[in-house]
């Protein structure tokens, strides 16, 4: 595993998302989401990598939901959790007033979790989200789930297929749920292969070096003997 500082992880996340074709504002949301997942020892950057490889510079409209009442539907392919998540966070008060929302065919649905937690915190509303056999509740700045964080993470990484996510508002955690604990250390451990692939995406944002750029772009000579 490679040990990254939170700053390095944030920078890599932002540039990898940019390399996948996201506009800067959504890249910033990707940083927030990956950092939040990391604070619960969940593989946020791995999930982001998987998402970026699927989006891979295709038009974002392909992954943007059509909102029909309480159902968010994909146009063609799966929905992007960064777009859906940002939209949830942006609509926090509005959504808190509803009883449920269904978001169909979300890619890497684990990436939706940070935004739902944020929405829950902003609106001071408990929100339950469920997909496949996962049930999680965001309540009073805490996360409760029907399995522990490690088990949840392993299953998400092994099965990263798109899934329909159901959100239910004003649902409090049941007593059988486990409460996830937050880490204080914000550093991230990444598998070298994951790091390498994220770096390759980030590399798309760097301009190829040219002699003109080398000489003029930073504005200083190459020798400083004085």
């Amino acid at each position, binding site marked *: 595993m490679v*040990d*990254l*500082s*939170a*700053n*390095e992880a944030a920078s890599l996340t932002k540039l990898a998302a940019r390399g996948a074709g*996201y*506009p*800067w*504002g*959504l890249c*910033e*949301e990707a*940083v*927030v989401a990956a*950092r939040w997942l990391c604070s619960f020892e969940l593989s946020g950057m791995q999930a982001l990598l998987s998402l970026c490889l699927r989006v891979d510079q295709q038009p*974002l409209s392909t992954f*943007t*939901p059509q*909102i029909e009442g309480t159902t968010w539907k994909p146009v063609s392919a799966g929905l992007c959790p960064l*777009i859906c998540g*940002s*939209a949830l*966070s*942006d*609509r*926090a*008060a*509005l959504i808190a007033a509803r009883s449920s929302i269904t978001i169909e065919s979300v890619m890497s649905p684990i990436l939706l979790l940070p935004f739902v937690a*944020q929405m829950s915190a*902003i609106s001071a509303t408990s929100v339950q989200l469920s997909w496949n056999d996962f049930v999680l509740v965001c309540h009073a700045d805490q996360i409760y789930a029907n399995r522990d964080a490690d088990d949840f993470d392993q299953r998400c990484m092994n099965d990263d297929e798109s899934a329909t996510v159901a959100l239910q508002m004003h649902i409090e955690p049941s007593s059988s749920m486990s409460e996830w604990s937050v880490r204080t*250390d*914000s*550093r991230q451990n990444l598998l070298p292969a994951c790091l390498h692939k994220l770096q390759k995406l980030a*590399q798309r*944002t*760097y*301009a*190829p*070096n*040219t002699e*003109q*750029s*080398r000489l*003029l*772009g*930073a*504005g*200083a*000579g*190459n*020798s*400083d*003997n*004085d």
Partner: protein
Amino acid sequence: MLPIHTRGMLNSTEPRQTSSRDVVQRRPADVVMRLDRLGSMHQSRLSFMRILTRRLKTEKWSITQKSFCIDETGVGHATYSITGPHNTYTLVAFAHDLPPEQRSDRVIATAWDATFTLYDGIPSEEDISRLAANVPYQEAGRISSTELTLARANRSVRLWEHVVAALAQGHQPDANQIDSVGYLMRTTAVYGSGKFGATDRQAVAGRPEFSVPFQAEMLTVYLIRTFVRDLVQHMANVRGGPATVQLDPDLARRLGIGNSTGLGMAPFLINHPQLFNNWITVREEALARVRNIEFVSEPEWAVFKDVLARTRVSVDAWHSAHPLQAEKIQQLNRDLERLDTYLPGIRMPTHYLWDRLYEWAVSELCVEAQECLVSLMMEPHADLIDGLDACMSAPDGAFRIDGSMPVSRLRQCVEEHYQWALKVDWDVREHCARAWYVSEEKLEPRLGERFEEPIEEYEQPLAPARDVCRLHDALNSFDADNVCAEFLLKHPEHRHAVRRVQLMDRAPYAEIRDNTISASLVPFDMLRCKLAFFGATHFDPRSDRWLRICLYANAPYPEETASRDVDTWVYPPPH
């Protein structure tokens, strides 16, 4: 956004204001945030270096040279530990033998005269071995969560040789030569906050000594200065043997540490809008408090006159071959002379002296001199100002967008805060001639010509004014009664700009109010602004995007902090 008005927090720094006169407010962002003014900023009581040296004395920090394993060719390592009330930090310094053809201040350099890291605690032998295998390679190496910073420095070859030769021959180096260069080594990067594996700022921000921004970096440079003094003495001892003399402490104190800063620093101010807002807010609050003082006491007036005289000494010694800077220095010299001539006409006590002086300066002096005066007026008022340093940091992470804000309100915010930008015709090539990008070569930040180089697709989001104008266009054709959340679902490409605009509504000093991609942009204005907050002096642009400065010249060395002035050392002794 800032708790400056909170009485409890800053009780001791309430304005001394008794009259019924209108209270002077902080200056408007439209005045303060122009690049020509930001690029004329001077160090002040609130500079990060001075905050650090004051703390070292107040808290009685002590320093020990733990090791000095450097051979007669000048190669090896040394460690310096500094201990405060709660923690010890150790500068681990590596000295190298650098061939002259490799001496470059650029980010793309791969070897240096000396390399450094600041270790959190006291390193073991194993730590030193690990660091020796990484720190000399800088970006190509890796440090860890026990290290706070990573830095490197190159010699001023000319002054280094002069000092070594003089001491080895048994006499002191020439003070004029020391003053004309100002430093024996200049750092070419001081990385902190999680770079290359180092610990993150947020992990240590809770420690009192790091509550103010950039304190770990400032401490690193301060300790580097001590190491460099010891290294030059060591090299003189090697050359001169028993005939060598010790460098006179008064001469040693005149030596600062140089710093060579390129474009990498410029995006920082745009990428950290909340932090930048807080720095400027604190400075503007300090100025407003001073301008609201009804009567200045004789001792306070004497402090002002003293630092003004010493500033004139400093400005006399400030040289730059860059035509823009040379002209500014000349103007500053001329205007400080005018200020000096104006002062005897002031009768004490004068009602609201500082405010009158400031208003006079605005009508009579150049911007460079106005900003210099702003810093000088703060000097006598530690009690009003120094406590503001607690408000200079900012939370980490992106500001959260309020999606419930009506589109009409967002558009109003744009028109209120970016009025100047809306007047720019962004289709004119000169107004968008430049583009900021990152080169694949060592990830060096660069500024290129948009219409002449293939760089546009790599453009970094460092042109907020243009981007906000594009947002404004899009808002104009969107339902004004709808909310931002709906707008952003249709227009995710404007999410970054919406975030900035909403932040500006709470943090008016968050944005540089000038065109950062104009053909006429002078990038070193952005560098200078940040460096002035560090406490740098003698800005010397080497091109429009490359600046040399001096840090810690005339500061006491760590072992002198108990006995010497740790506050106003930045002003050299009067002639």
